């Protein structure tokens, strides 16, 4: 959010325009209120329509991994969904944040000035690609071509449980979904951190250079400390995006309700993918269960996005932007 001077001025009051002015002010304030109302309404409606299913549930909602909501004795729990969502998103972040920050830093401080805007624009193109195309590409191109990688990891680093694969099947895995997610959130991380990197006052960079710093040392001394809140915010916004991604994950994973740390094995599920996949075959309680899981997803992404904004707001006081 840019803190430009508020352009608000009050005109001298005329007689005949007052009701129209008031009406217009009311309409635009109303639009603002609709925005607020929508955010609250989302949570409220989701909760309301999820309650019947939650009440009918016979196993703990938060810790069970079963998903049979349309059984005579409904049983559904989000543990496996939470696990899959968090694990795939975290792995995606581990890949996307360093690469995104690297691209942003390169574009803002290393690339020749003539190419920098073009480079930024090209990387931003990734953000314009619809998620279904990511899913199609991931399924048809990346999946067959990455089997070698997962196999190598299994054979040489298999002592780490994460890379171990006991099935010797390397398709439709959380690892693959995480890689696709990483590519999808990369432009988000990159664009936001690029903006922050570009805002570092040139005076700080000059000060570092004048002390006899190499280019990388200048980044470490003048750029990173200044940009840190922005970098954290960029990472968190990327996380938020990964948590909520539906279609690409739904296409790639072979949805199973299990908690499996072997990420290169087939299986796994996320909140969003589960909703998309199970929606049309769900009965009444089934729909309610999916809505309940959607509510959990909403709360998690809401919290992550809020935290991302708060980080930037709070550190603004200490960042020395003044």
């Amino acid at each position, binding site marked *: *959010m*840019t803190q*430009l001077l508020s*352009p*608000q*001025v*009050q005109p001298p009051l*005329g007689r005949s*325009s007052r009701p129209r*002015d008031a009406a*217009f*002010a009311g309409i*635009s*304030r109303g*639009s*603002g209120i609709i*925005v*607020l109302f*929508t955010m609250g309404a*989302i949570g409220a*409606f989701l909760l309301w329509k999820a309650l019947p299913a939650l009440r009918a549930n016979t196993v703990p909602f938060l810790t069970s991994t079963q998903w049979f909501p349309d059984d005579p004795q409904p049983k559904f729990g989000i543990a496996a969904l939470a696990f899959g969502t968090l694990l795939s998103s975290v792995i995606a972040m581990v890949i996307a944040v*360093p*690469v995104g920050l*690297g691209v942003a830093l*390169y574009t803002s401080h*290393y690339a020749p000035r003539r190419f920098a805007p073009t*480079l930024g624009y090209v*990387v931003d193109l990734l953000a*314009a*690609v*619809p*998620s*279904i*195309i*990511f899913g*199609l*590409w991931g399924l048809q191109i990346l999946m067959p071509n990455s089997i070698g990688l997962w196999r*190598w990891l299994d054979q040489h680093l298999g002592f780490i449980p994460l890379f171990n694969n006991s099935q010797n099947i390397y398709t439709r895995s959380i690892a693959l979904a995480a890689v696709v997610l990483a590519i999808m959130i990369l432009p988000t991380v*990159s664009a936001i951190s690029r903006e922050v990197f570009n805002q570092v006052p040139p005076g700080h960079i000059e000060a570092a250079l004048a002390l006899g710093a*190499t*280019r*990388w040392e200048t980044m470490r001394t003048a750029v990173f400390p200044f940009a840190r809140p922005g970098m954290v915010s960029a990472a968190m916004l990327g996380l938020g995006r990964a*948590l*909520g*991604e*539906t*279609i690409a994950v739904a*296409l790639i994973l072979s949805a199973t309700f299990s908690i499996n740390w072997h990420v290169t094995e087939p299986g796994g599920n996320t909140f*969003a993918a589960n*909703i*998309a996949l199970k929606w*049309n075959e769900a009965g009444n309680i089934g729909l309610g269960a999916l*809505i309940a899981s*959607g509510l959990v*997803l*909403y709360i998690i*992404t*809401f919290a992550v*996005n809020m935290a991302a*904004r708060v980080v930037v707001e709070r550190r603004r006081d200490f960042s020395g932007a003044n």
Partner: protein
Amino acid sequence: MTMTQGTITSEELHDLLSQRKLPRWNTAAVLATSVAAAILLSLMTPISGVAGTTVVAFVLFLVLQTWLSFAVEGSRYAIDRLASTFLVSALVAALVPLASILLTVLVRGFHAFNAGFLTSTMRNVSPRKPGGGILHALIGTVEQVAIAAAIGIPLGVLAAVYLVEFGNRSRLARSVSFFVDVMTGIPSIVAGLFVYTGLILTLGLQRSGFAAGIALAILMIPVVVRSTEEMLRLVPRDLREASYALGVPKYRTILRVVIPSASTGIITGAMLAVARVTGETAPLLLTTFLTQSININPFNGPQASLPTYVWDQIGSGTTASIDRAWAGALTLILLVMILNLSARAIARLSRVK
């Protein structure tokens, strides 16, 4: 405590100032050596194809370059080079998937494209056979996005007007602004869930193209608010003051002076928002029923759309369907790119003026 000063000899001065550096051609040489070594290795031992050799070459390059630099230039420059290498690799790592996606969509999509693709539907087309088209999906997408724009753009622009012209740093304005930011991060499927629970279940709205349009509008609004807000803030204060000084009431000033002067930026922002939601699939899956035929009535009955078409074809799984999926993907990406590029072209044209 004064700083000790020594006189330093001219050799010491030279040492202080000078620095052994690797020659300019060193990067190319080390790169070439690493690639050659990696290729050699892949011929001798069964390492997997192109990707594996590239990784080996990269690792070799890193090790060789860093070691050389450390030996000749010292640790500070070795680290500096390592950092530069990492940054360039990050750039490559970002560009390779983009190139792969765009190329694949182009090549495979084109392959399945034929004259009839844009003008026929999937009605009576067997999933196993090639043929058929996306006319029904195109119509659906155009209508749904139009509905989304008709709802989302006015709401978004008005909310931005409120924030900029009336908000006055009030609690309401700050809350709205904060939550608009948070709203940009709503998962698209949650927007679909909201329309389903709030409108379809509660108010009895049918699953239809219209419901999909509302869900897309929810996704559009925060983007429109933010970009419009930015554009409105760029309009200089003097313009408003001049208008008031002439006795023009506030609502008229906003409608006739402020918004028109920011209009290009607002349009650009709106188009980019439209491009964003055109590719959304998840909310459509929850709010519409799919069909293989044309339905021009968005308020009643199942309606197809481009993203759900691709989804459906992928689900069919046959070779013919996958081909159609790629062709659909190509159409979708072309549509999104056209919207994007037009928006940026408009922005650039107005800047030139």
